[in-house]
């Protein structure tokens, strides 16, 4: 981003009456450009709020941390540099660079990092903080040549690494990782104006902070082509045994792609195939033991001679996810364009097997698109639960849906300690179709909702004879004597068709004594499934918040076959 563009983004943003998002930026130097870039990048990522980036006194990071008032700022960013740990490690102080000073500098760095740790520990554990470790190279303070790593430097870097290791284990802190491609340091700027970063570096660091504080939603599914993509060669022409992905035949980059897909599958990403191919030949390739992604990791596999977009349509239906959560990879630009024309939301990426750099970039790009903060039990269950969802949608011939539900041996566990489970917020943030109002929350906003007087948060886990689905629904609200107000209610699309939503309402009515339910409903372009559910109870689709009495719900609730268990706090 150019500096001018950043100023324009900030200037042209219609602040009006949008809610404010206050971010505290803490640096040991004049944060001028970093502040401007950070505000611009955050504003681009959070268009629904007016972002305000505030700074503190420069050069006093620990003090700035103690002055953070979570009521005034909801997020923080710290650009830590060597000079924050000892001014002699920079260029604006003349405290000495000799061997005598080195030992003292080492002690100082340890002491400063300890103080910083203590200040960070005093922050509320739901205050999201992005932290960058020193990005500017150390000043020439060592007696060894610049191409030699000396013990003193290792000790300094070791202290930083230990601090970083501690920071990564702290749930609210995320560390910046920058790819070093541009020189970050501007000596003249540092000496003349206290601005150590080049504009390009300030932009890159600000963008990284913004991505950590307002992370993109990870994609959920990847649809891949086969010939000249998952493997090299056309299986139908050269035969299943001749397609390759190894070093000997200079096709290892296809093997790396397979390996990445397997890793993504391990973290819960759905992997499907859309290929114009003979299904029998494809299955023959998948029987090969040297394939880096086993056949059972792929669901569904669409190998036909029809348009790729038709296969993508069927896969999206099976996965029951929106096109904009999906990436499609193919070696053919025309196939990519055909899919894009029918499914504009799908991110289409070319696998160019002739260009090794492009494949390298593709592997990294896929990692970023599907990146997650943590891998949960639900992630490992997702693929299998989709298979069972497909079974649910297509009850075996001769079986009525009612009989099928009855025979499913379904068990639902309601947990009233959902507030403590990080999966709850994750589910709220990424669920669209069965979503009461589409509201997404930052961590502090989520905490505030859960800490409100009379607030409740309940989650539902599901399993049946086809396997477990894990935590698939979350509901929050306010419980008063007569009225139960539901503010948040989401359910994973993997759980549709099992009447779990009915059991959720039955459960809270059993737990609380209220005679009426108020749903803080709002229609969104994506919550059609929730609207249809509401219609089944109300007789018409709602357009605004609505109420349902206990008696009406019990009258219209279909027969439920789940075995229900409650876990209380």
């Amino acid at each position, binding site marked *: 981003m*150019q*500096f*001018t563009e950043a*100023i*324009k983004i900030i*200037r042209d943003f219609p602040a009006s009456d949008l809610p404010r998002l206050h971010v505290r930026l803490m640096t040991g130097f*004049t944060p*001028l*450009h970093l502040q*401007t870039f950070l505000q611009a990048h955050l504003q681009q990522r959070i268009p629904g709020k007016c972002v305000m980036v505030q700074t503190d006194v420069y050069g006093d990071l620990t003090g700035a941390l103690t002055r953070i008032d979570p009521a005034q700022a909801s997020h923080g960013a710290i650009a830590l540099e060597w000079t924050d740990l000892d001014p002699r490690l920079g260029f604006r102080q003349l405290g000495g660079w000799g061997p005598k000073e080195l030992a003292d500098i080492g002690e100082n760095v340890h002491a400063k990092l300890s103080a910083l740790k203590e200040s960070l520990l005093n922050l509320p554990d739901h205050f999201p903080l992005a932290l960058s470790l020193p990005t500017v190279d150390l000043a020439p303070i060592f007696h060894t040549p610049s191409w030699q790593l000396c013990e003193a430097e290792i000790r300094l870097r070791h202290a930083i690494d230990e601090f970083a290791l501690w920071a990564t284990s702290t749930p609210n802190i995320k560390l910046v990782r920058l790819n070093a491609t541009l020189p970050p340091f501007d000596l*003249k*700027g540092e000496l*003349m*104006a206290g*601005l150590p970063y080049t*504009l390009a570096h300030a932009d890159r660091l600000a963008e990284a902070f913004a991505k950590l504080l307002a992370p993109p939603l990870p994609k959920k599914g990847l649809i891949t082509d086969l010939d000249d993509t998952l493997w090299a060669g056309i299986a139908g022409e050269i035969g299943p045994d001749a397609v390759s992905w190894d070093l000997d035949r200079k096709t290892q980059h296809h093997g790396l792609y397979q390996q990445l897909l397997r890793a993504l599958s391990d973290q819960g990403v759905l992997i499907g195939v859309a290929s114009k191919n003979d299904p029998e030949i494809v299955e023959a390739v998948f029987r090969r033991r040297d394939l880096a992604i086993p056949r059972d990791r792929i669901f569904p596999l669409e190998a036909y001679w029809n348009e790729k977009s038709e296969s993508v349509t069927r896969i999206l239906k099976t996965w029951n996810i929106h096109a904009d959560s999906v990436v499609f990879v193919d070696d053919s630009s025309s196939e990519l364009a055909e899919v894009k024309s029918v499914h504009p939301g799908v991110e289409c990426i070319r696998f160019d097997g002739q260009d090794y750099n492009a494949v390298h970039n593709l592997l990294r790009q896929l990692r970023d698109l599907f990146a997650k903060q943590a891998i949960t039990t639900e992630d490992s269950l997702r693929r299998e639960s989709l298979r069972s969802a497909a079974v649910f949608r297509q009850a075996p011939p001769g079986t009525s849906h009612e009989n099928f539900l009855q025979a499913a041996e379904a068990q639902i566990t309601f947990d009233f300690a959902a507030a403590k489970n990080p999966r709850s917020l994750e589910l709220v943030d990424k669920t669209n179709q069965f979503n009461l109002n589409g509201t997404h929350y930052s961590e502090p906003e989520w905490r505030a909702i859960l800490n409100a007087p009379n607030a409740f948060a309940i989650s539902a886990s599901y399993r049946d004879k086809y396997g477990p689905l894990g935590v698939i629904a979350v509901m929050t609200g306010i419980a008063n004597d007569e009225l139960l107000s539901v503010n948040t209610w989401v359910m994973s699309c993997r759980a549709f068709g099992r009447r779990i939503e009915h059991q959720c309402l039955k459960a809270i009515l059993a737990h609380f004594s209220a005679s009426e339910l108020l749903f803080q409903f709002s229609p969104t372009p994506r919550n059609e499934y929730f609207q249809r559910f509401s219609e089944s109870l109300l007789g018409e689709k709602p357009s605004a918040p609505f109420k349902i009495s206990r008696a009406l719900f019990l009258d219209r609730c279909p027969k439920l076959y789940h075995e229900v268990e409650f876990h209380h706090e």
Partner: protein
Amino acid sequence: MNDLRFRLVQCFSLAFPELKAPEVYSASASSVAAWDSMASIILANVIEEEFKVKLDYDVLPELVSFDLILNYLNENNQNDNQLRRSEK
């Protein structure tokens, strides 16, 4: 010249959004309250990007009005043109 002047006005509008268009032509560090050392760095960065020039920290203290900056850019422009002609 007119184009350069117009582009410089755009730069001033970005750096000093509260300045009305007619005020830009007579703007100076002494007449614009917001024109402090930080604002002059922001203005310099915006001008650098717009005109693809480097405004060094050494010359910044001298560029304290719209006219002075316009003259500086004009001179720079002429020097560049002369250099290009002599290279041919």
